[in-house]
């Protein structure tokens, strides 16, 4: 079973590496951030699998923190980008 979890983890990693192509290709920042989001979810999955594979329950807490902070990045991005973009457009119309 341990080997299966690791194998699955490795598969998810490979999956992640493939998704990197979207970061590189873009085209927009939103596309890139979306991939960062995928990174987060996959990272959580891998952490949970590792917790099982290595019998290290503490890793679940790490996963918990990951998931709690997952919103921060995107929120920061849309907050700082979006608001400033919208303002001039709103004035113009």
């Amino acid at each position, binding site marked *: 079973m341990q080997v299966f979890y690791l194998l699955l983890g490795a598969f998810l*990693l490979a999956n992640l590496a493939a998704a990197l192509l979207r970061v590189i290709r873009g085209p927009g920042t939103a596309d890139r*951030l979306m991939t960062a989001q995928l990174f987060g979810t996959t990272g959580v999955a891998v952490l949970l699998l*590792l917790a099982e594979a290595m019998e290290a329950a503490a890793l679940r807490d790490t996963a918990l923190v990951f998931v709690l902070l997952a919103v921060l990045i995107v929120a920061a991005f849309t907050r700082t980008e979006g608001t400033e973009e919208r303002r001039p457009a709103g004035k113009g119309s």
Partner: protein
Amino acid sequence: MNPVAVGFDGLLALLILFLAVRALTAPGLQQPVILFIAFGLAMALAWARMRAPDVALAEAAIGTGLLGVLLIDSLGLFTRSKSETPPQPRRSRAASILAVGTTLLLAGGLGFAILAMPEAEGLAAAAAEKLGASGVDHPVTAVLLNFRSFDTWLEIGVLLIAMWGLFCAGGREGFAPRATEARPGTVLGGTVQSLLPLVLLVGIYLLWLGKVDSGGAFQAGVVLGAAGILLRLGGLGFPDWLRPWLVRTLLLFGFAFMLLVGLSALFAGAAFLEYPPTLAGPLILAVELAATLSIGFTLYCFFTYLFDLRIHPATASSES
């Protein structure tokens, strides 16, 4: 030997290296910043693989949390305000070759040194032996808050010094007046509302956990700081009731509290930062509480100060 494990680690190592190289060589800023955030995440997985959940926690909080937010916020600033970045002259071929050559040379030399390293015992046995007298049950917490608490004390000090540095660099000591528009009823606002109690709960849980397992003041502090940042992003500005003196007190509380504990040991005739064995447990808890508060607040202030600086730039004259 387990080929699957080696495969996993090999893949992760390659991923980390690729992310690092690409983060520095990719054009523009968006790719580097996002790839660097991904790099932090991959590092967290590496810590997990090496049975360092405490470090993984710290990295998760920093790599994808705080520093990521700071970088993303800076990304917005650098790619938008004022004129677009002027097109940079292409690096000459010779310079590229020089950079690549130096990198390979350095990596080779250092790699060889790491390969040639003999197996030293390390301090695991020494720490395990003294764990009983430390007042906590988790070895990493024991090292952080008892055996080498001097380092930890100074580390909390570095946070404070960095905050002073931010003040100097920003050209203003203290925070801008309330600078945000509340935007109720948004999805982010809703998420913030539902997340916030959970975040606080997890923070306290982590703090409590540090005594017996991975977790502790720093991780809990980061989670609390993140809660503050969430609030800020959700539209809540730097609160009015945080008077300047209160801000100062909160910023230096953890550092000062630990200093007081250390000094009182001196007056009791013990060494600096020495805990009496019977009081070690409660004292460590008290120190951790104080540290959590200050760490969380300082990290929140890092973000808020930078964020405010965008809206209210410093007033310093820019003579050159």
